[in-house]
């Protein structure tokens, strides 16, 4: 969707390195979601952010939503091979619960 821009498109990191994935919208977001997808499978919910400035963490993954609610980042600390997959940001654009998604970031973690 053109509504959400996600970067980078792909990322290859050495195990143990930190990394950040960004998601940007030109519109105010009413809910920002992060999902992870193993290749060829469905999407697994990671986190949801709603308030400007909100930050949530789960294990080694931290997601933040900026004050304007137009940009979010997903940060992985000390990456592991189990973190490999496609990360997608999605957002409720307040159009009757229609959810739009970024194009995804493919993450490869080299042992």
């Amino acid at each position, binding site marked *: *969707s053109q509504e959400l821009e996600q970067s980078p498109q792909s990322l290859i990191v050495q195990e143990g390195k930190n990394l950040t994935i960004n998601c940007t919208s030109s519109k105010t977001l009413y809910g920002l*979601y992060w999902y992870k997808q193993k290749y060829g499978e*469905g999407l697994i*919910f990671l986190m*949801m952010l709603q308030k400007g400035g909100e930050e949530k963490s789960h294990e080694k993954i931290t997601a933040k939503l900026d004050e304007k609610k137009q940009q979010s980042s997903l940060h992985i600390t000390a990456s592991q091979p189990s973190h490999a997959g496609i990360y997608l940001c999605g957002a409720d654009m307040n159009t009757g*619960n*229609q959810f739009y998604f970024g*194009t*995804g970031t493919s993450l490869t973690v080299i042992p």
Partner: protein
Amino acid sequence: DVKVTQSSRYLVKRTGEKVFLECVQDMDHENMFWYRQDPGLGLRLIYFSYDVKMKEKGDIPEGYSVSREKKERFSLILESASTNQTSMYLCATYEDRNEKLFFGSGTQLSVL
């Protein structure tokens, strides 16, 4: 946990065939969605439904139709499959209480 079940994991069909993709959820959610996922294009919304017999077009409804006769089942129909409909199809359901979108495991459709 919410369960969203898509009937087929892989499907191979011929051009011109009528194709049914089934999605069933077990949590009485009202909102259900069909997306297709293609490399470089991400997820694109085909249709969604917010109640039984109610449906709304998403961004790319052409060549598709949907059916929601019962709350738990949302079907995507390809009236006459074409090769450009080869894709991964993902069904999702929305939980109002927790504001979460849950996905099925996807159907990889190949149209030859």
